């Protein structure tokens, strides 16, 4: 049984989700690309930070994702985190079985450049593509 590419699956899902969510969504990185500046608008970086041990059947796997939702200011970053929540909470697709937020978003600041982001974590259950 092939293992699902969880990050690509989730990025593709979010890009197709609508809901006014930014299309600057980057997987497998916890910082935006070098050409991004917060003045351009929100962006989302997501990485797998862990998850459960493999299921006994190997048919599903649960991943915990870290989301950093950047914005030009704190209200915008948190507003984008709410848009993310609107499309991701309880989300389902043919590959995503379920998604649930693990923590409430916390607004933080990058120490290097002062960029504002909302930090939030979601647990997502995937089917492994057979």
């Amino acid at each position, binding site marked *: *049984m092939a293992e699902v590419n969880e990050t690509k699956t989730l990025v593709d899902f979010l890009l197709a989700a609508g809901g006014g969510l930014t299309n600057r969504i980057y997987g497998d990185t916890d910082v935006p690309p070098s050409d991004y500046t917060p003045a351009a608008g929100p962006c989302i970086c997501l990485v797998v930070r862990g998850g459960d041990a493999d299921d006994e*059947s190997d*048919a*599903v796997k649960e991943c915990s994702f870290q989301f950093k939702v950047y914005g030009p200011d704190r209200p915008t970053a948190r507003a984008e985190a709410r848009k993310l929540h609107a499309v991701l909470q*309880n989300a*389902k*697709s*043919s590959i*995503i*079985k*379920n998604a649930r937020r693990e923590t409430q978003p916390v607004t933080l600041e990058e120490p290097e450049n002062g960029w504002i982001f909302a930090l939030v974590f979601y647990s997502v*259950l995937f*089917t*492994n*593509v*057979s």
Partner: protein
Amino acid sequence: MADPVVGNIFKSGAIVWLAPAGETLPVADTIAAGAAWGGNWSRVGFTKAPVAVKYEDEEHDVDVEEFLSSVDRYKISEKIMVETVLAELIADYLKLGIGGTVTTVAATSELVGKDILEAGNDAIKPKYVVGFEGTYVNAVGLTLPVRFFVHRATVKLNGELTFSKKNGDYTGVPLQVSGLANTASNGRLFKFERVTAPKIA
């Protein structure tokens, strides 16, 4: 039974529906996932705990002197229970668990609006038909329902109502639905229905 299919692995919350016993079950051919069930069905509000189904049966083993192990086995009783905790503290939901009569008074210039439950000393328990629905997404992205029905059931309060300001929890109404034989349908107890494919266009 068939070869394993990952799409059959089910992960979903459940929406609870309730109607007076005898109400027609929702028809999967016409009522889509997430749609109202119509008729006298009422959605039972927010839940603060998972919907849990428990089926129990009692068996009788037929033993003979000649063999160490039983030669046959029969089911001699069965029961099904559905449990959850409702998140809303309202008179109608307390009535489900305790019984009684709810009176609703509309607000006027002289009266506040209020719901009043008068309960106690009711020996006869009302009978309901209870259903709940979860959903899954099939291989081509269609959301399809999985439904579970208890044809005839009574409901009881299944624990304490807890009032506290010391933690982040809030008051829930714990309910247990206990199935009865459906005397109108050969004593059937429950029905499970999983929509596996949409209509063919």
